[in-house]
């Protein structure tokens, strides 16, 4: 119990990452686990809902958009592509939407315990990632039902998914850091998310846009979110890859640079805010 043998260490003050990766990981997964649990308090079916809810929602969307509205007329496997795009978009929306207020929501913890601050937005991303995985499990049912042939490109699907996780976490860090000082960030981001939903080829396939205007399609795909979704569609069902849909393959550098730049900016801004988070809350 005595600390006599332990080495002395210098108090560095709060930071984004801290110096102990194992402690960081333990904190993040504990916070994520309790966040996940709290979603299902008081419901009789509990965790079953995390599969049942997307199953029923997907069935409705699949039916309405494939048979009633027929938004993807002539596009092969439109229904599956729609569900994949929605799953990815809602993942991004969940990470960033809950990420905005995450630091402020954890105020009592931040003001009373010194711990690596980046744990907070990261736990939000982990919960959303778990949700994404469960949605993808449900998606497999629809992929099988709609007769998409298995293809080797499925093995590459984790790449855009991981990039999506990194990008969404970077944006969430940026927003959560800004929100500590500027409470306007939340309503602004609500609007931006809504705009992104329509600016991203989720409900409509990019092929439809290309038929009207290649310029519009190119503009839409410069958005990293749209590019990642399009690439996932390509890997899952053989839709045109981003490089092809962009018109000029070289343009793919722009969404890639945006993704890297925004993620880096998010981390930098968060890192600078972290030491003062407790006093500015």
């Amino acid at each position, binding site marked *: *119990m*005595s*600390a*006599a043998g*332990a*080495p*002395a*260490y*210098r*108090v*560095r*003050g*709060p930071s984004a990452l801290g110096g102990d990766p194992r*402690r960081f990981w*333990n*904190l993040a*997964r*504990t*916070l994520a686990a*309790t966040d996940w*649990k*709290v979603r299902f308090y008081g419901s009789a079916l509990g965790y079953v809902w995390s599969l049942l809810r997307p199953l029923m929602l997907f069935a409705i969307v699949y039916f309405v958009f494939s048979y009633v509205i027929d938004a993807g007329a002539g596009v092969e496997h439109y229904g599956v592509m729609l569900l994949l795009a929605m799953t990815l978009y809602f993942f991004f929306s969940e990470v960033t939407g809950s990420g905005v207020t995450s630091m402020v929501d*954890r105020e*009592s*913890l*931040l*003001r*009373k*315990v*010194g*711990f690596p601050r980046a744990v907070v937005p990261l736990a939000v991303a982990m919960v959303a990632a778990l949700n994404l995985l469960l949605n993808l499990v449900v998606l497999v049912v629809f992929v099988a039902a709609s007769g998409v042939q298995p293809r080797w490109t499925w093995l590459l699907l984790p790449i855009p998914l991981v990039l999506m996780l990194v990008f969404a976490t970077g944006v969430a860090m940026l927003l959560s850091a800004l929100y500590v*000082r*500027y*409470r*306007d960030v939340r309503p602004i981001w609500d609007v931006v998310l809504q705009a992104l939903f329509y600016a991203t080829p989720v409900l409509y396939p990019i092929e439809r846009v290309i038929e009207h205007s290649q310029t519009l399609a190119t503009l839409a795909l410069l958005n990293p979110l749209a590019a990642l979704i399009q690439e996932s569609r390509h890997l899952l069902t053989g839709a045109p890859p981003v490089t092809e849909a962009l018109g000029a393959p070289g343009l793919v550098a722009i969404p890639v640079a945006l993704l890297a730049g925004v993620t880096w900016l998010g981390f930098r801004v968060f890192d600078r805010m972290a*030491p*003062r988070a*407790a*006093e500015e809350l």
Partner: protein
Amino acid sequence: MSGPPADDISVRADGVSKTFSLPREQLSTLKERVLHPTRRRRHDELRALRDVSFEVRTGEVFGIVGRNGSGKSTLMKCLAGIYQADAGEMWLRGRMAPFIELGVGFNPDLTAHDNVLVNAVMLGLTPDEARRRYASIMDFAELHDFAELKLKNYSSGMQVRLAFSVMVHVDADLLLIDEVLAVGDAAFQQKCFDVLQRSRAEGRTILLVTHDMHQVQRFCDRALLLERGRVVAIGDAADVARRYTAVNFSAPGDVAGEDGGLPPGDHDDGARLVDVWIQDAAGRRGTGLAQGAPCALCLRVRFERPVTDPIFHLALSDGHGRTVFAVSSEWDDGAGGDFGPGDVVTAGASFDNWLAPGRYELTAQVLHPGGGGRVMARAENAATAVVTGSRAAGGLVDIPHAFFFDRLNRPTPAAVDGTGG
């Protein structure tokens, strides 16, 4: 003087300073910034800590005292890695557990069970260790029956108990405790005392922030007195406590001033209360008093002007401000006489302590003789006592008593096997 501290030092602060900038006008929304683009954000600077240096040896209980706003909590938060100090160096040795603002940061929407797991991990346990210790944490807090209740349904006293229990179970070598002993019921306070004593025996290092000088004298080996962010005294706990009392209770006007106490003219400067305390049978000062044992309420006064037959008045009030017990020399004979400037008198009342368990405050007054109650000196809530007992009590006092009962409708043998016949 920089670099790591000597081997027997667990905490070292070296020239620590912390300044907060408080925006004078709150320009926190974009609209305000757009409407007033040229207006600079102006700040008031609050220098919370100025060049604070001290060392705490391993195994020491170290008090940090000072009035509200003197920087005690800021210093704790800097040591706990919650605030970033602007200047200076701080070194710690061993695992540190903070207990700040009466808690460890519970989430009101989670159950006690989940909060305990999250916070134990926050304080440095692995998730497995946290699960293994969960039962003993709940045992210590005596909250097993409420484990699945959300924290928002907990009373503040229950929350503090739970938080304190988590903190003492994370195997910290160094405890940073901010004002825990001021809350909770007497039984819990007794438990806190026991834990502190045991921690000290186990060689843990404890930093204790408190307003209560009797706690400092009872628990702390050494102490530090902060005033407006500066260290004004450091050393033996009793000396620092005396210095604090001297600074804050030096003149009757000051005493009353802090509590908003007496209207002008209600007291004069005819006397000065030098000290007010509560002691047990052995003459020890301290906050803890065992129920049933003899104890005494005491004051020491120094007269500044001549007076004949002054009245000494001592009143104990409970946590709700109710006067539970009061004594006055006016009601007893034999405390009279002539006193001149410079005379120092110790007066008091001893009695067997049959107060119900709880926290009590002592107010002392010296009055002019005769009616009218003209006050010469007064110190309000100048000493604290926590009465601890082994049994629960329902009223303000627990008068020695014998319980008896007599059952009147004793069943007759015939009624017991009445089905026979």
